[in-house]
Structure formats: C-alpha cells, structure tokens
C-alpha cells in the first residue's frame, strides 16, 4: 500500500502497477489535475501545502476506512505538494480488487474522504492575485 505526499510528478502508471497482483481482476484509478479556471476566474498555477506527518497519517486513515468498508487492501494514494502548473497531476489514486465494484467504490471514497480530512491546502494564483481555496472546514467529530 502507498500513502504518501510527494514533491515530484505523480506517475499514474506506477500507482496502477503497484496495486496489481495475480488475484486482482480490476484496477480503478482517479487522476486529479490542475484546472485552468476556478469560480469563473482564470488560474495560472497552484501551490499545494501539507501538514507533513499528519497528512500522511490521515491518508493512512482513509486507507483503513476503505479496507473496512469495501475490503480493498490494494491501494495507492499520492498527493503532490509545491508549485504545480496547469494540467499537472495533483492527486493520484489507484485501487484494485478481485471484482470491479469494490475498486470503483474505493476510488470514489478515497478522493472524497481525502478532501474532507487530509490537511492539504491549495492556493490558486490568477490574474487578480492569489487566494487560499477554503471549501471544507474540518469537523473534528467525524474526521
């Protein structure tokens, strides 16, 4: 299993290869890209910042929740930090299971839950300056 914050480009092929094994019948992946617009404004680039240590700890929690819910243990979660250009991969997820349903569900749950509980922040840079994207206050009770 991979749960890590990286400063270098994410290789989706590597993540998908990592979760494969002989008893796997399906691999599902999600690639989160840097988009060139946000809330009607042009975006030139992004900065991602993480709380080192806690971010990987909470990613491991997401992986544990996925094992409990869907029985999926072949999982790779990577989030990149630093300055990212348009089109670069910010987050990469790969999940594998014997039958396809569990890996689809694991992938969807992983991206939604990462965005709820993993302390990573995004600063968007556009023509009018920079803003922190603050869409999800953390609920301490459920995080």
């Amino acid at each position, binding site marked *: 299993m991979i749960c890590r914050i990286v400063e270098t480009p994410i290789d989706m092929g590597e993540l998908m290869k990592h979760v494969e094994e002989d008893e796997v019948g399906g691999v599902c992946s999600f690639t989160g890209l840097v988009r060139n617009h946000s809330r009607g404004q042009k975006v030139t680039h992004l900065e*991602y*910042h993480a*709380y080192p*240590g*806690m971010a990987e*700890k909470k990613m491991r929690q997401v992986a544990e929740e996925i094992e409990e819910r869907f029985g999926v243990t072949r999982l790779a979660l990577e989030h990149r930090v630093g300055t990212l250009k348009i089109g670069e991969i910010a987050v990469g997820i790969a999940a594998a299971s014997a039958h396809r349903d569990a890996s689809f569900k694991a992938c969807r749950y992983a991206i*939604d839950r990462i*965005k*709820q*509980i*993993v*302390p*990573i*922040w*995004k*600063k968007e840079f556009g023509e009018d300056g920079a803003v*922190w*994207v*603050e*869409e*999800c*206050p*953390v*609920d*301490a*009770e459920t*995080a």
Partner: protein
Amino acid sequence: MRVKVLCFAWAREVTGEDEIELEIPDGGTVADLRARLGEEFPPFSNRMESIAVSVNQEFAGDARGIAAGDELALIPPISGGLA
C-alpha cells in the same frame, strides 16, 4: 504553561510565523487555546468556527485537554473542491 502551535495556510498568513507560542492555563483545553488565540490575533475571532485544531496530529474537539509538549496545530478549511 507555554505551548507551541503550528500554523498552516491562512493561519500562517495571519500570524506571520510557521509556529507561534501561546500561554494557556496549566491543564488547559483546546477551548482555552482558542480563547488565547483570538486575544492574540483578532482575525481568528471572526472565523474561529472554521478553524480546526489538532493535538498530536489528530483533530480535537474543544474539550480536549492539552499537556505540555503536545504537538498543536491550527487547521484552516482544507481545499475541498466540488464533487
């Protein structure tokens, strides 16, 4: 007691530091930390409910006790994004 608090993202911009020190009562809680934070840095007062606090890398409610040496952090809303 004096505690060290890590600041990230918006919180980092308000305090101007990666890490601040605050004085809270011995045996104090996250609620005490929030009260002190609002006094020291007024911009937090208006949006305290949107800032989470972590203790030893786990999110903590206001009743959570703080011990000397705990790793504390201010966690502004994370990036989220539309599903």
